[in-house]
């Protein structure tokens, strides 16, 4: 049977994919530019079809703590927000990471700091990949560059979250959230029954039965020796994720003299920029990290021995460029180019920046 091709916004794709993937609960609070996620979910009324809970919370603080509560019971739960709202959620994310619970977060980034702007930005890179809240923890961070990937990463995010019992984040921006593209939605999956959840998540707070000890969902441990053990366990888990789950895309990298490194919406600008550069006889490739954490260190390190320089293209003041530089470790020049305040740079300006900053 031929698959139905639909036209929709990235935000709508996330909402519809969540229903189709059999998500148990969504808890969110309106904020531009991602309110279509909550709007689409309430319009679809999945509580009447799949039984999915959809709730508009009183704040982002409440949303993330609802996610914490739901995740602790083994259910597939998620929230979405945009930059200022994500800042409010960071304490909760830290608790979820500390209690080792799976959940999916979506950040459709806008410009900051503060109330900033409602225009697109990638300035929450640091917050997303370096932890974000207090304590030593990491969030699996996926960066979609299309409406299709917005939908596809709902499944990918939940699969990774449950595999490692760790929060996963779709780090999108106002461009990907708001633009409309063709998309094929995933097939409808049946939500797990309560019995299946109990069986799959023996660690969850689902009701204490006599065949096991009571389950405690907590990030608290006052004994320093035990708390150190917990932290070492987290770090070992993060190493496993770094070893197993790195995703990236290479575009025209084989013969490249220079590399543009860009994620999400900027990878699309970057792919146009490499076309323009190649028309001018400059061999440029694009490396697109799909997972921002774990960061694709190995492949970037390989290219550091092959190319003459790298340009990290981001709509922020230079954040991912720090990770590229750490990986390259001084072997070749690594520079940043981007616009701020919600402005998305034109591809020809990217080529100009490449010439000025790297090729010279």
């Amino acid at each position: 049977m031929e698959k139905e091709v639909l036209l929709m916004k990235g935000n709508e794709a996330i909402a519809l994919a969540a229903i189709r993937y059999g998500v148990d609960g969504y808890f969110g609070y309106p904020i531009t530019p991602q309110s279509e996620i909550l709007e689409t979910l309430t319009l679809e009324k999945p509580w009447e079809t799949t039984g999915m809970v959809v709730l508009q919370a009183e704040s982002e603080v409440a949303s993330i703590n609802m996610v914490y509560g739901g995740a602790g019971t083994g259910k597939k739960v998620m929230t979405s927000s945009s930059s200022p709202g994500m800042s409010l959620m960071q304490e909760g994310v830290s608790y979820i990471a500390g209690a080792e619970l799976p959940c999916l977060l979506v950040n459709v980034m806008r410009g900051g700091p503060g109330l900033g702007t409602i225009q697109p930005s990638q300035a929450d890179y640091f917050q997303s990949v370096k932890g974000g809240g207090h304590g030593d923890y990491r969030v699996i961070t996926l960066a979609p560059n299309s409406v299709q990937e917005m939908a596809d990463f709902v499944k990918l995010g939940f699969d990774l979250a449950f595999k490692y019992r760790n929060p996963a984040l779709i780090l999108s921006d106002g461009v990907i959230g708001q633009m409309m593209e063709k998309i094929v939605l995933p097939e409808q999956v049946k939500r797990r029954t309560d019995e299946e959840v109990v069986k799959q998540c023996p660690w969850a707070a689902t009701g204490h039965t006599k065949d096991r000890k009571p389950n405690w969902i907590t990030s608290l441990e006052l004994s320093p020796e035990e708390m150190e053990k917990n932290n070492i366990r987290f770090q070992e888990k993060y190493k496993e994720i770094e070893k197993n789950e790195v995703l990236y895309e290479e575009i025209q990298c084989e013969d490249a003299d220079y590399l543009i490194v860009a994620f999400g919406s900027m990878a699309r600008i970057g792919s146009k920029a490499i076309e323009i550069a190649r028309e001018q006889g400059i061999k440029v490739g694009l490396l697109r990290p799909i997972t921002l954490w774990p960061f694709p260190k190995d492949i970037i390190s390989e290219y550091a021995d092959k190319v003459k320089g790298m340009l990290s293209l981001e709509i922020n003041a230079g954040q991912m460029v720090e990770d590229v530089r750490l990986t390259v470790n001084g072997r070749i020049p690594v520079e940043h180019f981007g616009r701020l305040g919600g402005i998305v740079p034109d591809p020809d300006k990217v080529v100009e920046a490449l010439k000025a900053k790297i090729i010279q």
Partner: protein
Amino acid sequence: MTKEEIISQGTLAYKKPTLLNDTQMHYCPGCSHGVVHKLVAEVIEEMGMEDKALGISPVGCAVFIYKYIDIDWEEAAHGRAPALATAMKRLWNDRLVFTYQGDGDLACIGTGETIHALNRGENITIIFINNAIYGMTGGQMAPTTLMGMKTSTSPFGRDAKLHGYPLHITEIAATLEGTAYVSRQSVESVAAIRKAKKAIRKAFDYSMAGKGSNLVEIVSTCNSGWKMSPEKANEWMKENMFDYYPKGDLKDIGAE
């Protein structure tokens, strides 16, 4: 001689609930928490909800309640227990979902989550321990601290000009359309304990019947924080707290 052997020699007149395990509690002698824990455990057992009860512990002295009552628990961030409870109950409708929170947790940092969960009519119960002070952090002023009351952050007594007035959050809860049962009790005497238990039972029953949100406040002592003997703390509570926080049912939709 084991506990069982002692019991076998005589007639069993009283026992602690099976759900309450033998872990030594960390509470100060004279604290009200132990009694309220026992009541919660008794009510869950009497309802036969041992395998269906989901508790949410707060940040405060009762943070470790999960160590003492053998049901499944989630430990919330400070003040957020009603948000956790909201999701847990909506995702597991046949479970008995309740939070156990102190006045700093519920009536200060978590005021928003408390009021909105209650106002949405979530089918949960909030057990609210009000001792007019932050116990765990060493006796600081809480929103519920009485006028003139000395604490480590109001060393000259609570002053309305500096600190505002005690917050009557239970009275606020009773005005919300989403609440089904709102009651204020205490546990300083056998008679009071019996009434408090009845209130907890009614709140849990209403939660399971889907009648709406339920709040049971227990006016409590914190003899360490108040710097009094347990006996003196009970007397002080009766003389001072009950005027500010009068006991009884504030709302019962079943009685209307």
